[in-house]
């Protein structure tokens, strides 16, 4: 908002910058490392985020030297199958943007169509504005964004929400960063029918599916965080579980793994409680064994079955 008078650019540009110091000062290295550590796989996503972070770091320097005064467009779209970590990465992105000073607060407001689009005439605009106001200074994460646009119903109020969003995305770029997320093909169709969105989004990031090894690593990381562990037999059983479950419909990557682990923990607890006379060690309580895994319905039905 403040009118910046560009300083004498020649002398400003000549001033040397210690990039390493700048990098350390901003503290994004820590966030990026954390991203590497805590998110398994997702190579292309991590590369892209590193690129964006570097760009923003340089942009920040340029701004300070008076070589640019405009806020870069930071709106993004995350496409990928369910459970590939779009929301998690959005949270990290918010903290990177916050550390670099491109958003003021660094919170994430996560919404879907329900929170943006109203049910009656005149209901949509206040609802969308309400959400936008809450997201100001942070990141607005719109999950399954393509539901906003329903071409089959021309009186759908989604269009109204889209128009308000576009207006704010354009005019208040330094107040708000919008991240749209959804499945790849449907997002493509959404952008085709809403060219306004496509042109206002600077970064399109595609989230690949996890492979079996990565899913196993994710499972072990989740268990580690919850202070559980697999024994050797359980691990190989879970490997088989992943292979079979992946072939079944409605598989949603890390989310399916989390749900499977929750059910396995349930069975483990049941197994432990069924033998009340036993004296348990901490290790017993932490360990999930093969029987807990193999009791899953997934194994009964075999590949191709529903579940």
């Amino acid at each position, binding site marked *: *908002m403040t009118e910046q008078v560009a300083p004498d650019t020649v002398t400003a540009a000549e001033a040397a910058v210690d990039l390493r110091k700048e990098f350390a000062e901003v503290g994004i290295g820590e966030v990026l490392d954390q991203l590497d550590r805590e998110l398994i796989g997702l190579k292309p996503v991590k590369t892209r985020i590193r690129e964006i972070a570097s760009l923003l770091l340089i942009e920040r320097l340029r701004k300070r030297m008076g070589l640019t005064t405009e806020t870069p467009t930071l709106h993004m779209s995350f496409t990928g199958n369910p459970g590939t970590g779009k929301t998690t990465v959005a949270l990290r992105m918010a903290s990177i943007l916050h550390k670099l000073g491109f958003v003021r*607060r660094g919170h994430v407001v996560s919404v879907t169509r329900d929170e943006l689009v109203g049910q009656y005439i005149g209901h949509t605009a*206040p609802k969308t504005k309400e959400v936008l*106001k809450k997201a*100001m*200074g942070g990141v607005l994460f719109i999950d399954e964004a393509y539901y906003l646009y329903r071409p089959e119903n021309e009186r759908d109020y989604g269009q109204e929400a889209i128009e308000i969003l576009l207006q704010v995305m354009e005019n208040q770029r330094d*107040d708000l960063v919008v991240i749209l997320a959804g499945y790849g093909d449907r997002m493509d169709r959404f952008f085709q029918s809403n060219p306004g969105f496509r042109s206002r989004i600077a970064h399109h990031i595609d989230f690949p599916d996890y492979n079996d090894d990565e899913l196993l690593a994710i499972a072990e990381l989740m268990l580690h965080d919850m202070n559980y562990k697999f024994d050797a037999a359980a691990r190989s059983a879970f490997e088989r579980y992943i292979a079979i479950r992946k072939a079944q419909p409605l598989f949603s990557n890390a989310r399916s793994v989390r749900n499977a682990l929750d059910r396995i923990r349930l069975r483990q607890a049941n197994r432990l409680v069924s033998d009340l006379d036993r004296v348990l060690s901490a290790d017993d309580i932490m360990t999930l064994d093969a029987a807990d895994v193999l009791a899953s319905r997934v194994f009964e039905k075999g590949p191709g079955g529903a579940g």
Partner: protein
Amino acid sequence: MRMTQGCFSYLPDLTDEQITKQIQYALSKGWAVNIEFTDDPHPRNTYWEMWGVPMFDLQDAAGVMMELNECRKVYGDRYIRLSAFDSSHGWESLRLSFIVNRPKDEPGFRLGRQEIGGRSIRYTTASYAVDRPEGDRYGGS
């Protein structure tokens, strides 16, 4: 006559930047910010019209400023004030209130005298602006 009330009444009008900082302070305390407007500047006129609903759960002042600018577009010729409501137990009341917009010309107040029984006099004040109907008191909209 320049009408004053609420916080900062002893200061010149706040700039947008200063208003933003005050809003941010209120939000950081978890208070809900309201925008209110009126065209009757009488000091006892406590309840002003509300612009929209109170803004709960905001993190950043930009959201309030967006609404304030909308309100100024429509009611720029009236008084607009911001108030911050603290909903925490024991307070449950306004913690901060200040004027953020005023009409270009403020005609001031008339002192009215009413003679009553004996030699007594009752005094009252009313803004010259309220001689005109609500809505077109300050140049009209």
